[in-house]
């Protein structure tokens, strides 16, 4: 499943200007996209698993790199989304 507006937000976070605004005012930047409330919650919680079900894996990785999640932490969180987990578990995980 692809959440267009989440993906658009992640895509535009590649721009330094958007990242700067996001660091200063995360809610203000998110409000510029039509991101659903539950997805905003997942973003605020750095919920790698839930977000991984909603966007392109490269965009996901870019985003968590930009917001400063250490690579080791991202790896351990993304690996936890592997087989054995159903999509629903990942989303609600």
């Amino acid at each position: 499943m692809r959440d267009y507006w989440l993906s658009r937000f992640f895509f535009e976070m590649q721009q330094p200007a958007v990242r700067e605004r996001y660091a200063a005012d995360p809610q203000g930047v998110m409000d510029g996209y039509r991101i659903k409330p539950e997805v905003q919650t997942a973003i605020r919680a750095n919920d790698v698993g839930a977000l991984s079900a909603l966007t392109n894996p490269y965009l996901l990785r870019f985003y968590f790199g930009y917001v400063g999640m250490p690579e080791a932490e991202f790896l351990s969180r993304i690996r936890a989304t592997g087989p054995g987990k159903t999509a629903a578990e990942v989303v609600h995980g």
Partner: protein
Amino acid sequence: MAELVGVFAASHGPVIVRDWDKLTPEIQASLNAAFEETGRRLSAVRADLVIVISPDHWVNFFMNNLPAICIGVGEEHAGPPEPFMKPYPYMDSMRGDPAFAAHVVETAMSRDFEPSISHHLVLDHGFCLPLWKMKLDRLPLILPIAINDLEPPMMSVRRCLQWGRLLREAIAGYPGDLRVAILATGGLSHSIGEHTMGQVDEAFDQRCIAALRAGDDATVIHQLEDGLASTGNGAQEARNWVIAHGAAASKGFDLIAYLPTPEVYVGCAFAEWKL
């Protein structure tokens, strides 16, 4: 008449540049040797122009207009925007050949292919990292072709072979005097942003290499369609190798190096096709 003078492939990966200093001297040496041998061979064919076939890593395109394939027809191409590519030596000196590009596009459209066209393509690390690491004598003109290897749906492996044949035909049909090489970049197996991230699938890579080496189209299609469905997402970039394979008339290749390197997340491979 234009002439196809060489067909090559090389892997890429941001870590190869971004975290170069963290790699062991052994890994550094083997990667350098592979890139440089590929570069030596590309320099040796004295190409006037190189068709570089790479994925776009969310630099030019987004989901509001995601082409299966986009041909860069401009007079010049923009350099990579990734911070780790800042020292790239050809940042402002990548030039195209609009006449040749227009010929390729017209040939494609007249043969029932329908690429997107860009008069101003930005070439990210996928295009530029191999060109940089290869230490070419000089940079030829570039015809960049961006393939969607990142976000479904993607072109079938069969269609990639057809695109390769189309490039071959377009080169042969160009009235200008031009020595043309092809460089496919990307692959082989890797996994980015998925639960398998960091795994290199050597079994997939070996099957892929064996199929391309043997040259038989049906085997290439079968092995890759099958393998791509069950390995990491980065392996989708192997379809760029299939385009190169098609352009080289599926005559098989010489494997320059295969370096499965989890430290850079990529099953790195380097090859030169038989002409």
